[in-house]
């Protein structure tokens, strides 16, 4: 029995349940404190595992591996053999492929990141109040779904805009300047994750408002078609923390999470595997998960 319960929770946590079953699990979590606790423990173990392996992403890729990827003969262990390649993967990718510019983030994104995970982490106290708790959970889920719909819709509009990403504050030579400006309009300072190892260049920031709270939309573009343009939304939230949660709207992928009063969402058309990797990178840099 416990095994079946764990299987359902794990499938839910991995985003492998269809909408109907997902709602069943959310309803179950809404009314079962033990299940919520179990879910929280599974999510925590997952978070720790990701964090334990994150540092690999930030290490410079050894030259011998880049040489191997290029088909150059290289010794298996580092030696005196000098290879004519740059040491940083990010610099290579960034310089190589001018492809596509343009991802603005549109208005109205964040704030109400409540969603599917809310049931097990967020609404516990509310749920004690029976119907009121379920109503609150329902409303939170609906709000989250609406937000995700909007985020995906705006993303597609922005992508269709082409080469002129609509940013309020374009990135200058020193991108920190853009962050400082937009941070002045936010309750918390926004830090800029460096995503150049992924070939992603910061193009600028846009101030968006969602749920009555201002948020920053950071726009990144790349010439790597496998990743494509991305936006990172950083807002504030009074909701409980949740682990990165995957969702999808047509061909737009979203990873969203909350940590210590901040809400984050990574939106793009990259494969979910890339999004996970990039989200891990962001969380590591910002200590955001």
């Amino acid at each position, binding site marked *: 029995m416990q*095994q079946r319960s*764990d*299987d359902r929770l*794990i*499938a839910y946590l*991995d985003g*492998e349940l269809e909408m109907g079953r997902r709602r069943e699990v959310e309803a179950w979590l809404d009314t079962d404190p033990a299940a919520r606790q179990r879910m929280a*423990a*599974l999510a*925590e*173990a*997952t978070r*720790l*595992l*990701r*964090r*334990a*392996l*994150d*540092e*690999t*992403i*930030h*290490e*410079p*890729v*050894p030259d*011998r*591996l*880049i040489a*191997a*990827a*290029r*088909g*150059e*003969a*290289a010794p*298996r*262990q580092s030696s005196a053999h000098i290879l004519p390649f740059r040491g940083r*993967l990010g610099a*290579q*990718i960034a310089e*190589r*492929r001018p492809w596509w510019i343009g991802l603005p983030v549109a208005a109205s994104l964040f704030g109400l990141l409540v969603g599917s995970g809310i049931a097990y982490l967020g609404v516990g106290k509310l749920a004690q109040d029976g119907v009121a708790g379920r109503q609150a959970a329902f409303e939170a889920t609906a709000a989250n779904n609406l937000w995700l719909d909007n985020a995906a819709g705006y993303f597609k509009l922005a992508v269709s805009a082409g080469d002129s990403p609509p940013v309020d504050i374009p990135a200058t030579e020193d991108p920190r300047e853009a962050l400082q400006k937009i941070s002045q309009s936010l309750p918390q300072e926004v830090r800029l994750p460096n995503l150049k*190892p992924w*070939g992603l260049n910061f193009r600028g920031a846009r101030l968006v408002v969602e749920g009555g709270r201002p948020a920053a939309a950071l726009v990144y573009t790349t010439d*790597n078609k*496998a*990743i494509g343009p991305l936006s990172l939304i950083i807002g504030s939230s009074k909701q409980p923390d949740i682990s990165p949660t*995957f969702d999808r709207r047509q061909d737009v992928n979203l990873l969203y999470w909350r940590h210590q009063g901040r809400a984050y969402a990574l939106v793009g058309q990259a*494969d*979910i*595997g*890339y*999004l*996970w*990797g990039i989200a*891990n990178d962001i969380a590591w840099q910002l*200590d955001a998960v």
Partner: protein
Amino acid sequence: MSARQGLAGSPLRLVSDRGPVSARFSDQLIAVLPRLRRFARGLSGSVSDADDLVQAACERALARQHQFQEGTRFDSWMFRIVQTIWIDQVRSRDVRKEDGDIAEDRLGSDEPVRRVEARLALDEVRRALDRLPPDQRTALLLVTVEGLSYKETAEIVQVPVGTIMSRLSRARIALQLQLEAAPEGRRSTKDAAAQ
């Protein structure tokens, strides 16, 4: 498509003894290297073994680049190569190392030493990962760290989706139990996360 033709629109370079390598193919390979290293690190439990594993995977991928089907996921194809080579290594020799060796190897990376307690706690997580059977470890890494779906993971490992679900369930429960049995590590990690 032959290896000589390369991928569409991609210039070819003649290299050493492996024949022509398309620049586009190499670009894809380089782009996925950080994730391959992370996956290999999780599998092998060692920095040097992981890089050897990735290097071997690169060499095999280049030798078989004509087998890659355009329109399919390149990263999944590479994960499969890494996993296959690693399984071969596991079968041919006992590559498991003593816990102390693993920790020392990992701590020997270039990253400056910081937040020692947190690192010890994360080492505990890695040790818990190392204790999992290889098939469970693979499923856990592909789904939870690399973010692949059950179906994609099943295709990489070449087993039914139900088998992946079963392995994943056992792995997650085992991992959680091992972490719960290491209260010092958990506390340290929480402390670090709160910083």
